[in-house]
């Protein structure tokens, strides 16, 4: 775990006259949220292990504008989008990987109309391709037979029809992958999307993240796997509210694989 992370920035790469195979878009959550930063680092360790030549924007990265757009502020969204597109195009970025389904969706679907067209993949898809190409191997031992339930992030699943990549990765761990009744296209939201992450919920009878955490806990899993930093936060809070944080962990798919590989 002590291996120093190699995280070159685009600026450094450019200074060396190199261009990376892929840009890792870290996202605000992955940059600033303490829990999500651990996901970022787990993913970077896997990239380092697989020898992927990647780069980050570092201090040149800024919010994609997703929360502003979903909150209804199209102005702010487009300002952010156009500034980001200028930076990305200036570096001649072709391929982007991100661990955040919200960044993924926005850059993939909403940037092309504003002049930013890139090949955008979610980190679970990217890890899957590394695996398929033999650049990364997964040592399943530590998760063998453990019950893992996967929660579909809305902006990965329903929004972009990506259901299998994260499941394929979990299955490589020799774990027992179980499904909630509401999964894949019928998955229940964690409650964070549409800018809800940044506001209190409207009056109701229950918090959405608790409803979802209960559904996951009913299956008595060892691990609730997520593939989105916001889902991770919401489900972690939900598990805590049921006082189950001692025996059930909420982890990102990248963390599972990094753990399995002893990284």
């Amino acid at each position, binding site marked *: 775990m002590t291996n120093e992370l190699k*995280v070159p*920035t685009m600026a450094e790469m450019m200074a060396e006259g190199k261009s990376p195979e892929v840009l890792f878009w*870290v996202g*605000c959550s*992955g*940059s*600033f*949220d303490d829990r999500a930063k651990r996901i*970022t680092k787990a993913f970077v360790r896997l990239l380092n292990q697989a020898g992927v030549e990647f780069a980050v*924007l*570092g*201090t040149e*990265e*800024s*919010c994609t504008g997703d*929360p*502003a757009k*979903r*909150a*209804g*502020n*199209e102005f*702010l969204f*487009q300002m*952010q989008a*156009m*500034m980001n597109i200028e930076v990305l195009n200036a570096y001649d970025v072709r391929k982007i990987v991100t661990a955040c389904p919200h960044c993924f*969706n926005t850059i993939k*679907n*909403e940037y092309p109309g*504003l002049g930013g067209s890139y090949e955008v993949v979610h980190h679970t898809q990217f890890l899957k391709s590394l695996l398929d190409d033999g650049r990364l191997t997964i040592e399943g031992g530590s998760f063998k037979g453990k019950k893992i339930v996967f929660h579909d992030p*809305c902006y990965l699943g*329903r*929004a*972009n*029809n990506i259901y299998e990549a994260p499941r394929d990765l979990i299955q490589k761990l020799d774990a027992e992958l179980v499904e909630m009744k509401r999964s894949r*296209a*019928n*998955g*229940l*939201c964690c*409650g*964070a*999307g*549409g*800018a*809800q*992450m*940044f*506001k*209190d*919920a*409207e*009056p*109701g*009878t*229950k*918090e*959405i993240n608790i*409803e979802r955490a209960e559904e996951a806990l009913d299956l008595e899993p060892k691990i609730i796997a997520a593939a989105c930093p916001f889902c991770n936060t919401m489900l972690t809070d939900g598990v805590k509210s049921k006082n189950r944080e001692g025996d059930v962990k909420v982890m990102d798919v990248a963390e599972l694989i990094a753990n399995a590989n002893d990284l």
Partner: protein
Amino acid sequence: MSYLDNIFFAVILALGIGYFAMNVRKLIRNIRLGRDIDRSDNPGERWTNMAMIALGQKKMVKRPISGILHIFVYVGFVVINIEVLEIIIDGLFGTHRILSFLGGFYDFLIAFFEILAVLVLVGVIAFLIRRNIIKIKRFIHSDLKGWPKSDANYILYMEIVLMALFLTMNAADYQLQFRGFPHYDQAGSFPVSSLIAPLFDGMSDNAVWVIERACWWLHIVGILIFLNYLYFSKHLHILLAFPNTYYANLNPKGKFNNLDSVTAEVKLMMDPSADPFAAPANADPNAVPEKFGAQDIQDLNWVQLLNAYTCTECGRCTSACPANITGKKLSPRKIMMDTRDRMEEVGKNIEANKGVFIPDNKTLLNDYITPEELWACTSCNACVEECPVNIDPLSIIMDMRRFLVMEQSAAPQSLNAMMTNVENNAAPWPYNQQDRLNWKNDN
């Protein structure tokens, strides 16, 4: 004198179809109140969607029980209407069972219609039980208080009456054929109504004939009433599901449209050589600046308005909505019902004012849909995924949020704080952009 029947039939038919056509014109006028949106791309994919989703009921069977029962009623409805063709020809020309020259195939058709009629009855009775006895949650939801609840039951009763008339008519016809009554030649095969026919055994020929004629007339009149009821009910989906699935959004569900009016302004802001005070070239001095987002139905696009007329209030969207499940006020079904109700109100206003809409100090926002409902949405797309006919309630919610934020600056305080952070330091939280890479050296 013998032509009286036929003339009477032609008049009823013309009235029934004429009144329906008049209402269809209103419907088209109301849908055209919406903004333009181009959905002429990818005709191949659109036809496929219509074939699979509307014609093929692909999304209905995601919930197998209601899906299969619905297919009974749907197939029955579509196929038995071939019989209506025969009824219309017979009615206009005074013939009886004009299609019976088809011989064996006619026997097959009639037998098939009868079996379908029974399946329709099974489906409709099951639907009534689900609504009124089992009281499935989405059918007793507060969205449906009053007229919508009665509307749903009326439609089911009407279908029972129509099927009962159809089978009774066939049973009487079968008796008359059996007795060799004049003009009732042996035609058709009656697997179901032949079981009802013995009820007429003790009756005179004339009495059975009167029953047959009465059922025949009531059946066609019932169908015309049903046709004209559509416009006033939630039941328009039987027609509009087809255009609705054709014109539905084909993009990934996560892709929200970028507002072009905003793009133009943002580009101007970001262009260092642009003169912000310069008058635009060739500007129309009377142009009204485009409203950002939607406050009323005229601000929505015509596909969203078509969605509202297509909604049959099944409530699958609401039953899958995370906000509704956890007791919030938001119900995607209500968003669609409100949009339609407001559209009808605006339409009536236009009729009362000789073709012009006179502002009535009401809007879809606030008078029908409250900000509390709009802010409860997580944009998770569960409602869009659930809709068996590809209605998109989320797009209306987003357009109304845009109006709240960009025209009225009426976002919740905490969202304003988030947006201020994005503006000032390029993240939704108050962290400095210069610290973006600090995670690399954290432990």
